[in-house]
């Protein structure tokens, strides 16, 4: 493993035992460490970048943004567990450094009956984009729909997840995640006391019983269409309380699909074509307050993106984003349900797997604002043990 040799006295919160590294000698480390920097520069015809770029890792201002500096620790804990932690550092437009513990979890390695348990702080396995870190994104920013449904930082919380790899000849896996429903990364759910959502104050969502947790079942399946084409599809549903009151509940359903063609004589994995799409629907049942009746808000969103790696190191692509909703004649104007669509074009050059240069143009069409034209350039560098990419 190409990584730094660390002293053996490195302890993650799960404890580090005598690890069996998933790599051959001469790896003499119990922990793989990597550091990934993402830097963006650019601007937009729209001065309010905050209102335009909803993702917490999106470029945050005209000029330069250090989107994130991600430190990843991972390795085998012992023969029974694998551990991973992703710590993110960001510099805000005000020059402050934010530290975020994005993920820190352990997964089982060898439970019987094709079961696997994950426990800790983790990105909920809902759809495709939610579980991916910015470094693997095909675009500079995250889709509008994920920001609307899951906030700027993705749906993630502390909890546990059970998954079962079904005994089918093709890949088919069932997941069930149970997590805390409150906190700043649960914008559609418990959120943060004192914030407002859909015109109502969040009054808190202490866990009084199992009904106060976020529950997310998911199914994913994959089919080899031909020797060179693979399809992966999934369906997810997240339900939990929202903090608007005792009757406040939210449910988000989603479907996702990913198709990839890769040449049989691929050099460095090129050429390829991949298509990814996700759709989500949210029902937000807000509880009655002293001044407002109980109301239901429904909204939805989707994105479709196509990427073509036409020669080693070079990828071009396009993405269409859309989101909108229906406030059912609600008492208050709700900007979170406004119709919005965005069209993006991207070109990326990967000098190696450890660096990239990217240029992206987006046209944003928001019902309440003038069209915005936005251009971002992005640079990435990666040090240390490069974690292998999932499909």
């Amino acid at each position, binding site marked *: *493993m*190409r*990584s730094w040799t660390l002293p053996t006295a490195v302890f993650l919160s799960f404890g580090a035992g005598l690890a*069996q*590294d*998933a*790599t*051959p*000698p*001469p*790896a003499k480390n119990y922990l793989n460490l990597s550091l990934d920097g993402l830097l963006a520069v650019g601007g937009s015809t729209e001065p309010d970048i905050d209102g335009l770029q909803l993702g917490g890792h999106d470029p945050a201002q005209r000029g330069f943004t250090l989107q994130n500096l991600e430190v990843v620790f991972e390795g*085998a804990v012992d*023969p029974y567990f*694998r551990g991973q932690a992703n710590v993110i550092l960001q510099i805000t437009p005000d020059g402050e450094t934010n530290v975020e513990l994005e993920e820190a979890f352990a*997964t089982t*390695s*060898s*439970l019987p009956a*094709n*079961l*696997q348990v994950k426990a800790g702080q983790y990105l909920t396995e809902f759809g495709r984009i939610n579980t991916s870190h910015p470094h693997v994104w095909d675009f500079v920013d995250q889709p509008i729909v994920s920001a609307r449904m899951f906030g700027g930082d993705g749906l993630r919380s502390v909890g546990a997840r059970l998954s079962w*790899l079904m005994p*089918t*000849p*093709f*890949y088919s*896996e069932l997941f069930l995640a149970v997590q805390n429903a409150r906190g700043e990364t649960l914008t559609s759910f418990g959120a943060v006391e004192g914030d407002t959502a859909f015109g109502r104050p969040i009054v808190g969502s202490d866990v009084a019983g199992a009904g106060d947790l976020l529950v997310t079942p998911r199914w*994913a399946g*994959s089919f*080899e269409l031909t*020797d060179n084409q*693979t399809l*992966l599809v999934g369906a997810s549903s997240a339900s939990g309380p929202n903090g608007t009151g005792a009757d406040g509940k939210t449910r988000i359903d989603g479907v996702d699909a990913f198709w*990839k063609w*890769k*040449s*049989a*004589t*691929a*050099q*460095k*994995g090129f050429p390829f074509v991949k298509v990814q799409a996700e759709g989500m629907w949210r029902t937000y049942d807000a509880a009655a307050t002293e001044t407002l009746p109980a109301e239901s808000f429904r909204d939805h969103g989707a994105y479709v993106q196509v990427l073509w790696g036409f020669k*080693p*190191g070079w990828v071009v692509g396009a993405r269409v984003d859309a989101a909108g909703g229906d406030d059912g004649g609600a008492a208050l104007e709700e900007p979170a349900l406004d119709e919005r669509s965005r069209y993006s074009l991207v070109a990326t050059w990967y000098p*190696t*797997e*450890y660096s990239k240069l990217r240029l992206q143009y987006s046209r944003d069409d928001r019902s309440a604002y003038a069209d915005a034209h936005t251009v971002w350039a992005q640079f990435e560098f990666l040090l240390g043990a*490069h*974690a*292998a*990419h*999932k*499909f």
Partner: protein
Amino acid sequence: MTSMLFAAAVLANLKVVATTGEYGALASAIGGPRIAVTVLAKPTEDPHFVDAKPSHLVTLNKADVLIQGGAELEQGWLPPLLEGARNAKILPGSPGHVKAGEGVTLIDVPAALDRSQGDLHGAGNPHFMMDPGNARIVARHLAEVFCAADAGSCADYRTGLAAFEQALDGRLAAWTARLAPFRGTPITTYHPTWKYFAARFGLVSDVFLEPKPGIPPSPPHLAEVITAMTSRRIPIVLVEPFQSRKTAEAVASRTGATVVSVGQFPGSLPGTEGDYLKLMDANVEAIASALEKAKGR
């Protein structure tokens, strides 16, 4: 294809998964009908960049034995598959997890890990199976693993191994004789894939189209390659199915060299599917006949 594999797997004693085809071919030669072999990487694709497809995860979930190179060639795609496979039999450290490179002396072991020197493999050059001598070491290792996993058929595995070794000895003598007239000849290759092969058969492999391992050819570097090939009269450029033949042709046309198609994996070249000895036959013959032609000029 897949259904045939499953049918075979039902009848076989051991389900063996190999990351790349040369290990799968050795396993088949030793185990015959007693093992069902599935290979994850296509013989024509770049083995450093295989996709960690969910179907591979299902394959690994059912495996009794996993054979990987053990020299980090699969580093970019095998770990997430092992993680999702939920199969304790093939996890690192289990008897069913085979690192083929164990017991093989690897070359190009970097003194320091420094990616400014290209994409180095910390364990050394992973293309050791292009030396047939190393194929013998790996085959013996595999026979031991199969014996441990399926003691009832151990005698058959030993018989299979003996037959393979006997065939290998015969072929090795023939390959050595075929390449003997060209001892000391320098060759150009795309990536440092053929250093073990060159060392075994007395060729010199020190000119590469890649400026550094894994770094794509650049015009200034190719100019240096052309200069070196002209002054040292290097007669051939080796290219594999997933490497840029266009680049190789461009260099060859400027230096009078010949581009030769070779492969590291059974099935890389037509007619070599599933058979390591046939693959090496084809490689040796392609290289020897190209060198012969060059000598005649």
